[in-house]
């Protein structure tokens, strides 16, 4: 069987440096990540945390950091009881110039077969990354309801 994983590719009219900044600057992430802040010094081995309304929803550590090309951190859910039992997953961002655009690939893997977490992130990422693309290209985010983040998870 294929390992359960989520892969998303999007082309954004921006520069690798701006995209890196958008992924690692919490003032930026708050705008498109439905209010979530990223916290890390982005050095390999350093802690990573994602906070929503001041509460840590996910945490991990930096596995790879090669600005502005590649960023990877482990990702362990903390908030929802039902998701807490799942193993530590991993998020990897790959940023590549593509003509006048930048190609961003998000790989989220390390899920367990039959788990709920994959469904949750599979709904979350398209909403987050669409907001990121809109913000970088238009200077403003899309007004997507926060419910989009939990769509798959709630549906279970």
């Amino acid at each position, binding site marked *: *069987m*294929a390992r*359960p*994983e*989520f*892969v*998303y*590719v*999007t*082309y954004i009219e921006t520069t690798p440096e701006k995209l890196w900044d958008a992924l690692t600057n919490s003032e930026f992430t708050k705008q498109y990540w439905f209010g979530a802040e990223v916290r890390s010094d982005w050095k390999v081995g350093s802690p990573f945390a994602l906070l929503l309304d001041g509460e840590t929803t996910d945490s991990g550590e930096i596995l790879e950091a090669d600005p502005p090309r590649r960023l990877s951190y482990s990702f362990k859910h903390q908030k929802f009881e039902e998701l807490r039992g799942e193993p530590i997953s991993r998020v990897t961002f*790959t940023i590549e110039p593509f003509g006048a655009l930048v190609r961003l*690939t998000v*790989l989220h893997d390390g*899920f367990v*077969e*039959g*788990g709920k977490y*994959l*469904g949750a992130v*599979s*709904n979350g990422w*398209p*909403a987050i990354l*669409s*907001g990121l693309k*809109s913000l970088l290209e*238009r200077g403003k985010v*899309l*007004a*997507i*309801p926060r419910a*989009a983040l939990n*769509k*798959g998870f709630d*549906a*279970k």
Partner: protein
Amino acid sequence: MNLDQFKPLTVYTIYIASTPEKVWEALTSAEFSRKYFSGFAVEMQPKLGGTFIVRAPDGSEHISGEVFEYDPPKKLTVSWNVNWPDLVEKLGSTLVTYEIEPAGEAVRLTMSERHDRPPQRRHPLRRPHRLAGDPVGAEEPAGDGQGAANQDVAAHENARSIEGDGDQDAVALCRPGAREARARDP
């Protein structure tokens, strides 16, 4: 054709600052599609059972199909058969479904591509031996085995390797959004 026999291979969701009507038009009108689809024109008879053609700039029928579900501006399912030599004969028919839903001030567009081939075991990526659209990792979704939530299948947007180098343009012509949907190639 029994639509239920078609299993999703690729699911891609994007939120767009637009209206359902405009997204529908962008997906189904020749004038609009030429602008983002490398000059290719979507020619659709707007009714159930109508023809669905994607015409190349040279006038040839690049993709031939038929309308199987027609519910503007919410849902459209068409067969999506690319007229490359032997492609349909080897890979079977392909269905493409667009689902368009309002999401706040945006529109959530989900494209899913389905095939009537049985699930296959993962085989190693070896670019020179692969055909566009050939499934890699097209197994049943993890989870409850019945496709779980539709979006879970996004996990299936697994490595889709396409023919050798220089393939990107060819692949992009396969379907709108193909570039986005073309996933990681480790």
